[in-house]
């Protein structure tokens, strides 16, 4: 009896071979076989995931990636102690800076997604090949965009064109900046340019207009510092801008108010934007630029992290509409009912006695919703007009009528008189001025400074050599400031990287 019982008990205790095989049920692995059109789209979409790098949180209280490029111009300040503004005011960059790390990380995260999408899209050979080719073109555009940011911020960077699978693949050296342009950025865009993507896309996807615009910018930059590719690249650039202008699908908004209205996202003047939508993803820059703790908005907090310098605002020509109250800047508003007691005079009017950025003033968000669906702009038509004017004059030596028209289109909206009959230098300065005044605080100015190595002195209105220029805080730019340091974390995880000059 005793042993029979024992045998019965023991025979129940059996093992099964696959007991330790546990597979995830809620996520796909890279070995999962996917064939639906929706999954092809999802891979394509992933390339867009990190385009938010242009406007994302940098792990600081009220600190966002656009601040890095604006602080560096010396034409802005901050009321937010935690924005690390002091580092930039003192031109005292640290390889530990979270802004710098965030830009680097975001771009490479986007590149890896592009690389995987390109390789996965090849597997969808059973789907409409034109569709797949257009998907790939979107991805190529985005990969070029990420690399374009990287080379301008950091110079030589590791080149990743394929999906990395082995840990040994990760210790890369930096490839020369020109090689990144020549082997990735330019070929990717030229390939994308062959697609049948529509010239305009109002849902927020990459369009042919965006591809041409980025190419125009890439060539314009390539022609300038540090590559100095030569006049032919100005010509290539001008050609792409002209394609956009001639397409006729883009035009300037009538008024600056239309920039700030989320219902105009992706329309009219906007060529490529980072997408925001109320309840899904809110554009944090809207509250970041409001006067610190002013109580003027429905946002939980106003940060005051990016504030235009007085000198800059005051350097607008008199009569320039953009410098007038509540166009590009504002000095007064009213308190928000959630932040002031009933009857408080602030509910009627507050004078902040300083200039704040009005470009991102999404009124519905500020007054009511406390979250903003206003897109963050990467390219808009005014930029294209000005790129055309600059590239044309640099390619041909004298401005043509179309170039004058382009500049004057931007000027006339600002109630400024048209310009005419100028030589190259004068015209180029007129275009640059327009770029400063039109595109300020949109992350354009810094890139213009480093490709021209000239910086506009707000007091005199003249263009000074970058190296040696002393900013309003009394600090001089030097050669090292043309590039940001490679993030320390990257240096520590990749032994094969060298640091940029001066850091």
């Amino acid at each position, binding site marked *: 009896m*005793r042993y029979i019982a*024992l045998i019965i*008990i*023991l025979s129940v*205790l*059996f*093992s099964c071979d696959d007991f*330790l095989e546990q597979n*995830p049920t*809620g*996520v796909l*692995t*890279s070995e*999962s076989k996917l064939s639906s059109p929706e*999954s092809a*789209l*999802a*891979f394509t*979409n*992933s390339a867009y*995931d990190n385009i938010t790098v242009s406007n994302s949180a940098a792990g600081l*209280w009220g600190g966002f990636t656009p601040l890095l490029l604006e602080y560096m111009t010396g034409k802005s300040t901050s*009321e937010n*102690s*935690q924005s690390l503004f002091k580092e930039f*005011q003192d031109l*005292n960059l*640290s390889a*530990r800076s979270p802004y710098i790390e965030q830009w680097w*990380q975001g771009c*490479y*995260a986007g*590149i*890896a997604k592009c690389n995987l*999408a390109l390789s*996965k899209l090849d597997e969808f050979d059973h789907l409409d090949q034109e569709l797949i080719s257009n998907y790939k073109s979107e991805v190529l555009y985005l990969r070029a965009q990420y690399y374009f940011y990287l080379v301008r911020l950091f110079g030589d*960077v590791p080149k990743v064109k394929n999906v*990395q699978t082995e840990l040994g693949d*990760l210790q*890369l050296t930096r490839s020369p900046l020109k090689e990144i342009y020549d082997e990735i950025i330019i070929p990717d865009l030229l390939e994308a340019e062959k697609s049948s993507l529509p010239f305009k896309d109002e849902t927020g996807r990459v369009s042919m207009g965006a591809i041409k615009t980025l190419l125009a910018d890439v060539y314009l930059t390539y022609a300038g510092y540090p590559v100095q590719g030569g006049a032919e690249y100005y010509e290539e650039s001008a050609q792409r801008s002209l394609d956009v202008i001639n397409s006729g699908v883009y035009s300037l908004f009538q008024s600056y108010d239309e920039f700030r209205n989320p219902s105009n996202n992706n329309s009219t003047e906007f060529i490529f934007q980072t*997408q*925001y939508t109320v*309840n899904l*993803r809110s554009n944090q820059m809207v509250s970041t630029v409001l006067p*610190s*703790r*002013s*109580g003027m908005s429905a946002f*939980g907090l106003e940060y005051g992290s990016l504030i235009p310098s007085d000198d800059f605002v005051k350097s607008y020509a008199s009569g320039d509409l953009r410098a007038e109250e509540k166009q590009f800047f504002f000095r007064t508003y009213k308190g928000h009912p959630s*932040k002031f*007691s009933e009857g*408080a*005079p602030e509910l009627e009017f*507050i004078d*902040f*006695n*300083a200039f704040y950025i009005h470009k991102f003033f999404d009124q519905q968000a500020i007054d009511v919703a406390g979250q903003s669906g206003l897109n963050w702009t990467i390219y808009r038509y005014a930029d294209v007009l000005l790129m055309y004017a600059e590239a044309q004059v640099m390619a041909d030596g004298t401005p043509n009528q179309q170039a004058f028209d382009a500049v004057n289109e931007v000027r006339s909206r600002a109630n400024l008189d048209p310009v005419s009959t100028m030589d190259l230098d004068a015209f180029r300065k007129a275009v640059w001025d327009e770029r400063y005044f039109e595109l300020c605080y949109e992350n354009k100015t810094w890139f213009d400074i480093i490709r021209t190595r000239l910086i506009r002195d707000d007091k005199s209105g003249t263009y000074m050599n970058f190296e040696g220029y002393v900013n309003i805080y009394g600090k001089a730019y030097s050669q090292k400031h043309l590039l940001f340091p490679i993030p320390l974390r*990257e240096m520590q*995880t*990749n032994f094969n990287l060298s640091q940029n000059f001066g850091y």
Partner: protein
Amino acid sequence: MKNCTTAPLWREKLFRIMKLTSFLLFCVIMQVAASGYSQKARLQINMKNAEVKDVLEEIKRQSEFDFLYKSDLIKSLPKVTVEAREVQVTEILDQIIPDDLEYEIFDRNIIIRKNPHPVVKPVEMKEDDVDISGKITDENGQGLPGASVIEKGTSNGTTTDLDGNFKLALDEAATLVVSFVGYKTAEIELAGRSTIDVQMELDAEQLEEIVVVGYGTVKKSDMTGSVGSVKKERLLDRPSVNVGQALTGKIAGVEVFNNSGRPDGKIKIRIRGNNSITASNDPLYVVDGIIGVSDINLISPNNIESLEVLKDASATAIYGARGANGVILITTKRGTETGKGSISYNGFVSMGIVAENQNLEFLNAEEWWSVYNTGFDNIPKYDPVGFSQGKYNRASPDALSLLFGADGKPLYDTDWEKEAYRNTVSHNHQLSFRNGDKNTSYSLFLDYMKQEALMDKNYLERYSGQVNVDSKLNPWLKVGMNVVLNYNTGNDLYNLYGIKRLAQEAIPLIPVKYPDGSWGSNRDFPGAVQDTPARYFEDLVNHSTTRQAISNFYLDFEITDQLSFKSTFATDSRNRKTNNYVSRDLIQFGGRNAGGIARISTRNDFYWQNENYFNFNADLDQNSSLNFMLGFSWQERTAELLGTESRNFVDDFYQWHNLQNGTVNMPSSSSDTKSSLNSYFARFNYNHSNKYLFTLTGRYDGSSKFGKNNKYAFFPSLAFAWNASNENFLMGNDVFDNVKFRLSLGQTGNQEIGDYLYAQYLGSSNVIFDNEFSSTLYRNSFGNPDLKWETTTQVDMGLDLSLINGRVDMTLDLYYKVTDDLLLNAPIPYSSGLNSLTKNIGSVENKGLEAMISTYNINTSTFSWQSTFNFATNKNKILKLGDNNEDIFPTKHATGQMQILRVDQPIGAFWGLTRLGTWNTDEAAEAAEFGRLPGDLKYEDLNGDNIINQDDFGIIGNSMPDWTLTVFNSFKYKNFDMSFDLRFVQGIDVMNAGTHNREDRSGVANSSKTILNAWTPENQNTMIAQIRYMRTYYDSQPDTHWLQDGSFVRLQNVMLGYSLPEPILSKLGISQSRIYVSGQNLLLLTGYKGYDPEVSTFEGPFGQGVDDFGEPRAKTYTIGLNINF
């Protein structure tokens, strides 16, 4: 494993039958202290012409007695006839055991052996003999039944009855020898007396403690590993609501951090330091053999019989891949075997008083208003341009008629700390019913607890029940079960950082409510934001309910006398549901924007295990014995999560009870995971002459968590102990009762990382097109098919010492351990597109010393005093990190990194600037080089580049203590008892990150009173920058001023008890009753400038010692009552 069914049936021929039955395991658990079983057990035997051996077998069958004898001793005995009804075992033994043999009863074990001095039974009384009577009592004065009372030098003797009384005829000049297992033998000269009362003294050496180890028990003297043990009496010597609180300071090398005044105590336990960086550092909990019980705090300390902590590799290797952080074994109470039922009640009521900490005080309304104005007065100095522009608007009392009277004075002065934290009343009641006889025993425990937390509206309520049954079906099979049910419910807002922060930051000018009944809000003051904590308690609910059911079934099969087999099947199932509501009017947490947010999330965990093991015991010869255990087990754990959220309600009435009333339904979320383990384990013990003890342990573990290249690993250990006191040269020594040296070496593992980390995944996120989400697919993990366990190799040298008749007990352990193949969430280059990869890289070492010293200072019949010292010191050092030994920054404050992981530094080193003070007016030029003004903070420029930035950060402190010491003293005087615990934690730093908000800025939230010592031209020698409106820039980064010495001495507990004396008890019909009062945390000595230096506000392995708005802790006063019927 099927071949195990044909495990050899060991023949008696091979070894003499001398075995201990497997019940020993359970007898130990019962451990009814010296109950005099032999007097109580009654036998009924009717056997004719039977072999003595068969009679013994029959006794065994009827009772719990077990016999030890050499079989040849009784083989040739004449057959006997026994006719007995309801008699004690001695009556039968006296009848069947001839005079040339003798027997001796040790509780339930009876040894039969040759009698060196054949008994001459006293058949007649000598003339000068007198009748002597008396009572033998135990150390508590209770009658000691079954004690043996013998006339010295003769075999004349008797045993005491149930009440400890005896009667014996003796020679007047005789000397009495009184003995009982576990007590020192007493010799008393009669000296003419006719009544002799003897109180017996405990013999620490003889009262052999039994210690629970993995898959078995072992006598303390046979232990080879380092195991700390706490029995129920010591565990409950202060009122505790969870295991962590009960364990604090009781075992050297077990650091219990009680991190909060919150209801669940937020306990963190570390055994011998931190081994791991990414994987868990929590010990493994094993409750009644159930491995890895999910939430140990759900178990009521009242239900625990004993708690053992396995520390060294020899003890923990049996738990293989999960043993590296140490193991805490919990054995719950079982039924009794006495045949006498017992009912007992334990209960206490506690009052928690918010501990006043003079080190952290906040500004009152008047001070705050003055600081605000000072800030504005100083704006011209710090932002002359902005000031001249008129950028700053000072609040004026005229415009703030809500807050200021016509005289310009503040109308209110609210102490927000007092509004947020209150005094509390908590209850704890337990009823237990225990009964059973030698065949079947059972017990039932009912437990209720309601614990209020200091934070208003926060509480935890627990109902728990436990029932267990053990039954011996026949001589070779015992089965049993144990079921624990817990129901926990409560409201917990402690997780909301914002509330704790506002309790410190809310502006004292603001009232809780205005006279018209509307809420006060910080927003009523310009530039300030957020509502007040008082409002949060009304408008936020975070209510959760946890149900846990632990069940355990076993069968214990005796295959032969030497070989047994045990199989257990256990489950642990837990359901946690959290209901969350943010009201429609609350601006924070998105309530107003969303029109109210209701969330329900659930988590279901289910775990099952089946463990089976064989146990073989044999005595090889007279001097040596061996024990062999071999087992295998299967375990599987699943978790399923579900979350749902609804927004925009017509009224706050519905909260989470009617999600469909919300018009905006957020996407539901779900996920599930599963993991499994398959293990084979064995232990081999060899004991030679009770002098040399060897233990070999090994476990072979397979885990689903790891990569396909490394599914299985083996964890061996080896230990040796030398009982020097059993050597001839120490025998009979008056000083050394027990001297044992231990040495162990072995490896254990740590597998506590997430599931499926070895694989490469496609993650999914959303991007927006046309104002709608569109899915993405991308690779979100690099994957690592080589992923495997962390392996900790540990060597431990120990010394157990018992001196001067047990007056001094000492355990000393020195250990050194290295954890290799750290499961590091190692950063990889961002150029991979990913941030980190879980891989086995890096090493950490821990070395330390633990000492436990118990002294019995005074031990008389009316007064006793006992002291225990637990001392531990541990040094932790990172030996290797990542491919390039790169730094890792594990915790981040809003202003910068605070902690660093770096080679040659301890885990959790603090990282920051060095604050030298403030710039003086005569240092203006030097300050200007740094872009600073006199009155600004002055930091050390580490790299001398005249720039203060993140390159000037350095290592500034350590979050783990240099040493800890707990001193426990207990006193007994007649029916009174008194005890206290003092806990010393020394050489520890705490990052008081809230200093940023309290001192490094002002004017938008409340500050601490220390800001009144800020820099002024007249007060330049200060660590605090000049007050200025915060929009003009304050320096504030983690630094040496935030980092403070967190060393402390805490009077953990003081208790005074009174046990009702016997006469009253018997009148009341109760067997024991004690009332007590106690105070916990009555005294805290520390230089730390926060609420409490024992603090952890961040989750994860590095949160210890980071105080980013911690909370106050209670001083607790308790009154309690224990009654046994």
